[in-house]
């Protein structure tokens, strides 16, 4: 019953927010960010309604033995739960920022470009341009998650392909690929990213590429070792004997078996990517202003560390909490999925 009440309250809040934005302010579909927010909002409302009134369709999941075991493992520690709640909030902020942010993150009041301390009006204070920090931090979640996920996606797809190739073909191919990856890895990644961004120019897309192609070694090593283990398994040898193509074996047998380890590594890498982007902002090559990005805001806040500490504290906390949540989630998933047992 208690659960239902909470779900109901959430539903009411979500409907109220949507009502305010859609009907009162007319923000539905006019720009990309509204589209995202609207779609997310609709999805959330549907999900809440289903949970409230037709819970039975979720039962199927719960009945799945593997899922149940994982769920149990995952729920053992506090870390995983905390992480899930935090990340849910961060994702919510990221998608709903245009609906819930009290002010525009970029608009400047040119007659009053100065910082002010946190107050009821501006919960996190304002920055040196008089912009509301709370709104900026909310919007920053979109950049952090967007860049983090995309960079890891680039990183994983490259790393996994290399690892698959090396592991599957073995021998000379393995040696050459892994040596190349090791050489690539021996260049300090910040410098590599710095050089790549210098070459490509700044911009979100280039940052994703630069962060994505550094540190390939983690994914490729992991994939390679998993492939080595699976390759010797009977079903793979028999599939091979039956004349299945290499690609088919990779796709049908090897990839599904490595997915859980990859998810764990990917989760941990998202946190690292967010930190690397923040580090690049420090070197002046982060996300371009006026886009609200945490690393850029944190770097800007340094200048005002003494008089306006809120300018660095809140974006700093946002980075720490996000990275922390991904790390906790990664740990919890590692325990739950237990990639060490591959059968």
């Amino acid at each position, binding site marked *: 019953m208690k659960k239902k009440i909470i779900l109901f309250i959430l539903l009411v809040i979500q409907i109220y927010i949507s009502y305010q934005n859609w009907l009162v302010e007319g923000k539905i579909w006019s720009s990309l960010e509204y589209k995202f927010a609207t779609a997310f909002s609709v999805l959330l409302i549907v999900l809440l309604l289903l949970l409230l009134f037709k819970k039975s369709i979720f039962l199927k999941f719960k009945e799945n033995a593997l899922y149940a075991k994982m769920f149990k493992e995952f729920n053992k520690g506090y870390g995983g739960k905390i992480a899930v709640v935090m990340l849910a909030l961060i994702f919510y902020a990221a998608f709903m920022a245009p609906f819930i942010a009290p002010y525009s993150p970029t608009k400047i009041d040119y007659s009053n470009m100065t910082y002010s301390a946190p107050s009821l009006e501006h919960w996190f204070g304002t920055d040196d341009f008089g912009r509301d920090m709370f709104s900026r931090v909310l919007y920053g979640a979109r950049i952090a998650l967007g860049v983090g996920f995309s960079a890891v996606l680039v990183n994983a797809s490259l790393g996994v392909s290399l690892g698959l190739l090396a592991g599957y073909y073995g021998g000379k191919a393995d040696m050459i690929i892994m040596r190349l990856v090791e050489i690539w890895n021996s260049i300090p990644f910040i*410098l590599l990213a710095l050089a790549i961004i210098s*070459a490509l120019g700044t911009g979100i897309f280039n940052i994703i590429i630069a962060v994505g192609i550094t540190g390939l070694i983690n994914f490729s090593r992991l994939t390679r070792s998993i492939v080595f283990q699976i390759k010797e398994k009977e079903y793979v040898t028999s599939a091979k004997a039956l004349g299945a193509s290499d690609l088919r074996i990779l796709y049908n047998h090897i990839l599904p078996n490595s997915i859980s380890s990859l998810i764990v590594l990917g989760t941990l890498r998202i946190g690292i990517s967010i930190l690397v982007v*923040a*580090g690049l902002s420090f070197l002046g090559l982060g996300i371009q202003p006026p886009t609200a990005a945490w690393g850029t805001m944190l770097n800007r806040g340094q200048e005002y560390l003494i008089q306006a500490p809120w300018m660095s504290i809140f974006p700093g906390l946002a980075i720490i909490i996000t*990275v922390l949540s991904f*790390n906790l989630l990664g740990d919890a998933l590692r325990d739950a999925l237990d990639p060490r047992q591959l059968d």
Partner: protein
Amino acid sequence: MFAYIIKRLLWLIPVVIGVSLILFGIMQLVPGNPAAIMLGTNATPAAIKALNEKFGFNEPFHIRYFLMLKNFITGELDSIYYGDEVINIISNRLIPTIELGLLSLIIAVLVAIPTGVIAAVKKNSLFDLISMFIATIGISVPAFFTGIIFIYIFSVYFPFFPSSGYGGRIWTLSGLRHLVLPAFALSTVMIASTSRITRSSMLDIMKEDYLVTARSKGVAEKVIILKHAFRNALIPIITNIGNQLAMMFGGAILIESVFAWPGVGRLAVSAVEARDQPLVFGSILILSILFVLVNLLVDIIYVFINPQISYK
């Protein structure tokens, strides 16, 4: 063992060639002409041309690559910005970088391993909870932010240590005092991750049968933990330290900038900014070699701890 080390050292040759090719390739893509940057807004086209000729930037790609590699190996490679030999410039910066890295590593090991062991032994105690909470936060903070906060707390608010700069070699008092803050700032990530790994691998080992047997035989708990459990737990710990080194090298670059530390990392960053190709080439190459060497060191320690593994 000796043969193994030789083999690993020989591995440096392909690393040098590979890294230098990568760097050279990227530097070709980087827009910006070192002469134009050096001369800044006061440059005249004639002066830029003269400088470009002086540094041979008008030669084709492969000739310049081999020239640069040859000059780097023979030590004749000249930096554009400094007008000095790259080897000279780097050797001046190498010691501060090594000092910073080594001290951070030592701090990390000295702090992290006891913390992890105690946390594991007293599982779920207050110490365990607090230390692991701090450790989890530790791996989530951007390195440059840690640096600035450290300076503010330990140099401005409580004036214990100098804020920045290099005070001399590590064995002098001034040198050590200058080194403390950057070394601690750099080691936070390593401390955090190592203590977490130490704890979890200690916990894994302590569940093992042979320790239960030893315990039932009445061997003292201290002996069990230190002699049996810890020794076996060390292997994953060292593997983790090896994996963390890349992170640490990356962090060192930011820390060196924050603390105005005259190291190779900061040098490399400013070389990229100045489009000083020979220096970018030299400094990053040196960092890569250093990285490979430190990894080798970790591997050797690995062998000493785990005699079952032998390298041939």
